[in-house]
């Protein structure tokens, strides 16, 4: 097993707000190896975006408290000073954001913004060399007419093209790690597939380790090697893609899987859904955070469950649920497919 490229250990991020401290990330750990794709899945407010942004240091603020460790190789990112972080961003770790519409500055030409990204790390690059590189990158990500489009403004690109351009910008300095925060959420379904395909291709061809943040398990199935499921700031299940999809251990994961509509199965009477809504991080329930929404809760659930591997033969597959593996296997099916109990 090769050394992890990126190692996150017990990361905690809290924010002070008017109404109290919000613990957005509460103990997240995972390793990322070269050319691996790790997907972090969860609803809004689960802490997945904050985790991603904290890795790259974007959540540093007066009202944020960051604890734990994020190591890129030998460099400890949580304690690196601003100058060090600046040098890493774009150079060793690059990030692609959710909304390509607003992620580019509307008043500058798109090509110029990518050249800016290059010159941030190699200031001696000439404008012409920079532009040539941009054309190269555009071609690599599949933007047609690259030569001409370099001089266009962001609003002259369609959503999908803009996202490709974002990815191109992220690749400019050939980073080791790519973090994609909901890269397809703002796009049409057909474009989504294209962008995912692109990410998967880049991961394969360039050995680009990738962290993919999303709320959509369908997206995960396309590209991920390993999956972390987050809820209320905590990881509730983690494992390989196959383990999560074929042998999910946590009721929340069942809910996520169950709410996927599938063409290859007969339609259930009702689409299983997860009752209730995510808890306010200011008023977390006692014990297991999922307890109020879980149809299978029992007496032990008022005790906070640890993240443990409960299946003897899968030491890397861990979950936070007190149910025994046999109980889980029994309870997770609804009308023959994985999901939480359908609403009555």
């Amino acid at each position: 097993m090769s050394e992890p490229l990126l190692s996150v250990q017990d990361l905690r991020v809290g924010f002070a707000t008017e109404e109290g401290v919000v613990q957005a990330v509460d103990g997240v750990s995972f390793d990322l190896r070269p050319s691996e794709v790790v997907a972090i899945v969860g609803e809004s407010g689960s802490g997945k975006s904050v985790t991603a942004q904290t890795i790259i240091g974007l959540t540093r603020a007066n009202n944020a408290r960051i604890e734990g460790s994020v190591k890129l190789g030998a460099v400890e990112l949580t304690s690196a000073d601003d100058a060090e972080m600046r040098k890493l961003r774009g150079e060793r770790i690059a990030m692609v954001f959710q909304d390509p519409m607003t992620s580019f500055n509307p008043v500058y030409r798109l090509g110029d913004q990518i050249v800016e990204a290059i010159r941030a790390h190699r200031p001696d690059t000439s404008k012409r060399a920079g532009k040539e590189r941009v054309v190269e990158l555009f071609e690599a990500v599949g933007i047609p007419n690259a030569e001409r489009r370099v001089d266009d403004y962001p609003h002259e690109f369609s959503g999908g093209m803009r996202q490709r351009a974002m990815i191109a910008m992220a690749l400019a300095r050939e980073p080791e790690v790519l973090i994609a925060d909901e890269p397809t959420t703002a796009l049409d379904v057909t474009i989504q597939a294209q962008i995912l395909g692109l990410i998967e291709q880049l991961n394969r061809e360039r050995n680009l380790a990738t962290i993919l943040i999303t709320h959509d398990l369908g997206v995960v199935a396309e590209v991920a090697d390993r999956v972390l499921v987050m809820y209320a700031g905590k990881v509730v299940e983690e494992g390989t893609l196959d383990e999560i999809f074929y042998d999910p251990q946590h009721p929340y994961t069942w809910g996520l899987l169950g709410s996927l509509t599938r063409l290859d199965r007969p339609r259930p009477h009702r689409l299983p859904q997860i009752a209730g809504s995510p808890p306010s991080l200011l008023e977390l329930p006692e014990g297991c955070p999922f307890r109020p929404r879980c149809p299978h809760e029992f007496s032990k659930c008022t005790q906070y469950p640890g993240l443990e591997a409960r299946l003897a033969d899968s030491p890397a597959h861990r979950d936070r649920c007190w149910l025994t593996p046999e109980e889980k296997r029994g309870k997770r099916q609804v009308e023959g497919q994985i999901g939480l109990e359908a609403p009555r």
Partner: protein
Amino acid sequence: MSTEPSAERGPWSLALRRFLRNRLAVAFLGLFVLIVVFVLAAPLWADHVADTGPNQEHTVEQITVDGEKKDVVSVEGKPIGPQWFGAGGKFFLGADSRLGRDEMVRLMYGGRTSLLVGISAALLATLLAIALGLLAGYFGGWVDSLIARTLDVIWSLPVFLIGLAVGIALAVGGLKLGPLELSSGSLWNPILIISIFTVPYIARPIRGEVLSLSQKEFVEAAIAQGASPARVMFTEILPNLASTVIVFFTLMIANSMLFEAGLSFLGAGVQPPNSSWGTMITVGVELLRIQPLLAILPGLMIMLTVLSLNVVGDALRDALDPRGKARLDAALQFEAQAGATRPVGEASLS
């Protein structure tokens, strides 16, 4: 455990709490209330303390101060200075100009006019702006074009200058527009001028909000249920404008008062026998060397009123749109907490 927001924490009570937490704003609100009380007390003071009216002249009279007799207006034409309670409250702040009128009484009565004109103009402008904004934003199309263009034309005029011009024209000749007739000294002249020329200031943001609100689903839903345009505008859109309207109305009073003061100072606003703080400054500037208080006092009153309204309006804006400021407040709060306590998350785990 329920995660629904409790009923008492409605958006209005939250906003009110936020506003009350801003002690500076509350203090200035208090100041504004004091000023209003001050001007409302004018008749009381005039009748019972100063024993004179705002336009009564005492040029050749004398008053008794601590047993001594003093000229209200000296032989050289210098008006007497503030007597405070020396003469039983008469000429509390001294006399104004050669005419020997009681400055304190004038200040109070002038304030009534200034506030009256300012608030009326702001009210009228706001109502017009709401009406125009609703029509333009909701109906779109040619209605919007017409209204927006008209607002643009007014907006692009040198508003004060034209207001001045109109003010003078009306001061000289009064107004005759069909059935509407106003005499040249009517207070409605400045009120109308100010409100018409300041309508675009509020109407544009309201129109913008109505435009975006009209696209929202709850409006579509109401229409789909068969609600008439009037009903939709009143029950769905209008309530959502409330916070914008409240903030702008407050700021508009301040603006209108400054506008009126400017017009009156130059003689194109409030006409004699009415007087406002603005007209008082005209007199005061002439006598600046002899008695600077005559210019400073009314100016100070205007400034305190406008300042209070601006601070309160600003605080209302923050209270009703918490994102920006609340984040800053929280940042400062965390600074204080950092290092002193452990993060909350750990505490809830046990």
